[in-house]
């Protein structure tokens, strides 16, 4: 749960201006969809939010503080491809975040801590519909299952912001509909602010609370280099969508990812993640 503010952000590569005058305010728990024609800098903007690239001008603030200049555990990410690690099994992929957090030197958990992490990971896998797949390698999973795994892996670490780079773009329509339901549920049950890049408008309007379109204002060949894309539409979805209030969800005791006793009626399971200190 984090607020993001972009303050007159520009991105230039040498003489080439990709993005200009991007100013926006993202409230906590929002689900933003970034849309626009290909090559308009959607992904560049996402990479700046990730910390992988720095704005040439302007500033990005998260919760009032300037964004760290490298990716960190506050911001989870799911890419279209290569999001999960091919050399780890499904279970190991999900456990990785916990192991990296709790074992600074070995990056592996053993004994009771390892079992606890594995239990939490198994619950999360069941939550995203991957129960029974835990000992497979990702290459043995379908594309949709790999993206479910990538979501589970990102959420296990408990990020405040989840960045999605065309995560469902390569999936079949039926599978995509299923994973949209999962995405909605995860967004409701965790306390994530989500920013999703997509080129699928129905996906954008179906999931997001707010759709932001990036576009080049000037597109004549001689102008392309010197004028970047900027926010051309900023649409609040009506009727207003908002994540279910967090107060309905019990905060989990330290060390758990999900409340075992509390069960929200009408929902498959209440997914509660502890907030990072």
């Amino acid at each position, binding site marked *: 749960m984090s607020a993001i503010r972009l303050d007159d952000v520009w991105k230039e590569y040498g003489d080439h201006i990709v993005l200009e005058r991007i100013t926006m305010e993202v409230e906590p728990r929002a689900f933003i969809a970034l849309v626009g024609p290909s090559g308009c800098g959607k992904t560049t903007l996402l990479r700046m939010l*990730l910390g*992988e690239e720095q704005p040439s001008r302007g500033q990005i603030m998260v919760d009032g503080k300037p964004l760290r200049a*490298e*990716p*960190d*555990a506050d*911001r*989870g*990410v799911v*890419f279209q*491809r*290569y*999001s*999960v*690690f*091919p*050399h*780890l099994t499904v279970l190991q992929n999900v456990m*990785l*975040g916990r*192991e*990296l*957090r709790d074992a*600074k*030197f*070995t*990056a*592996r958990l053993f004994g009771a801590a390892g079992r606890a992490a594995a239990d939490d990971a198994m619950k999360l896998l069941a939550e995203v519909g991957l129960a029974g797949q835990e000992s497979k*390698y990702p*290459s*043995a999973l379908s594309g949709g299952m790999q993206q479910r795994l990538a979501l589970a*892996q*990102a959420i296990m*670490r408990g*990020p405040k912001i989840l960045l999605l780079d065309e995560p469902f773009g390569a999936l079949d329509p039926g599978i995509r509909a299923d994973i949209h339901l999962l995405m909605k549920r995860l967004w409701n049950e965790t306390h994530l602010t989500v920013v999703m890049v997509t080129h699928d408008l129905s996906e954008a309007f179906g999931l997001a609370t707010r759709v932001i379109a990036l576009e080049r204002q000037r597109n004549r060949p001689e102008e392309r280099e010197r004028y970047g894309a900027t926010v051309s539409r900023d649409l609040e979805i009506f009727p207003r969508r908002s994540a279910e209030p967090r107060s309905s969800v019990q905060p989990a005791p330290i060390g758990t990812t999900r409340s075992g006793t509390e069960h929200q009626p009408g929902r498959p399971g209440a997914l509660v993640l502890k907030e990072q200190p």
Partner: protein
Amino acid sequence: MRLVNIRPGRQTRFYLLALPFLLVAIAYFAGSSARLTQNPNDKLLPALPGMVQAVKQMAFEVDPRTGSYLMASDTVASLGRLGSALAISTVAALVLGIVIGLLPGANALLGPFVSVTSMVPPLALLPILFIVMGLGENSKIALIVIGTLPCMIRDLAMKVQELPREQIVKAQTLGASTWQIALRVAMPQTLPRLIDVLRLQLGPAWLFLIAAEAIASDSGLGYRIFLVRRYLAMDVIIPYVAWITLLAFLIDVGLRVMQRRLFPWFASVRAE
């Protein structure tokens, strides 16, 4: 049907596989018998019984002068040198390859240096090694290490750099430090590729081993070949060459099996 569409079946494949070996054998023994009918004392192309006799003597009879089985002790000496040199190269290449491949700073510092050193012809350094390290085991092992290590580092660093950027970013979003990325993301994915790199360097490693043994040694497969060359003992040299080839082939097969067993996930990654 076009040639590009003709796929041999299982049985045909086996016959095709055997054919070149068979042709070489036929050519050799035809030449051998032709020469031997002209001159029964000819030493250049010995017949099979002669080679069997020589192998029997080298492999299964105790050498009266040294009190050991020569072929076995030669093999042990050579494999010992090869093994220790490749162990050093492999470990050093793994560490340096990951450091150079993962850290842009280390790449700037060491990348060009490694590229340049991989161009130095190692055999030209052999005299220096003999002068500095003496004629013992160390100089031979050093030659193999110098001959294989720079290429291995360069190849491995390249493989690490080929890991999708997304994976490195993803690991950071899971909170990984540089050390943790190296340990849990880069190294496990580099190990199967290390086996590929090692397999490629086996050929050069044998070359440098035989060369070093030929010049200054008192044991080893290369030493024996160059020793009996003085007596034109082709009946020893040819079985020795065949034996070295078999050893190299078995090591290669062993590495391939190891790669498949230890890294079951790798086949599908490589197929991409």
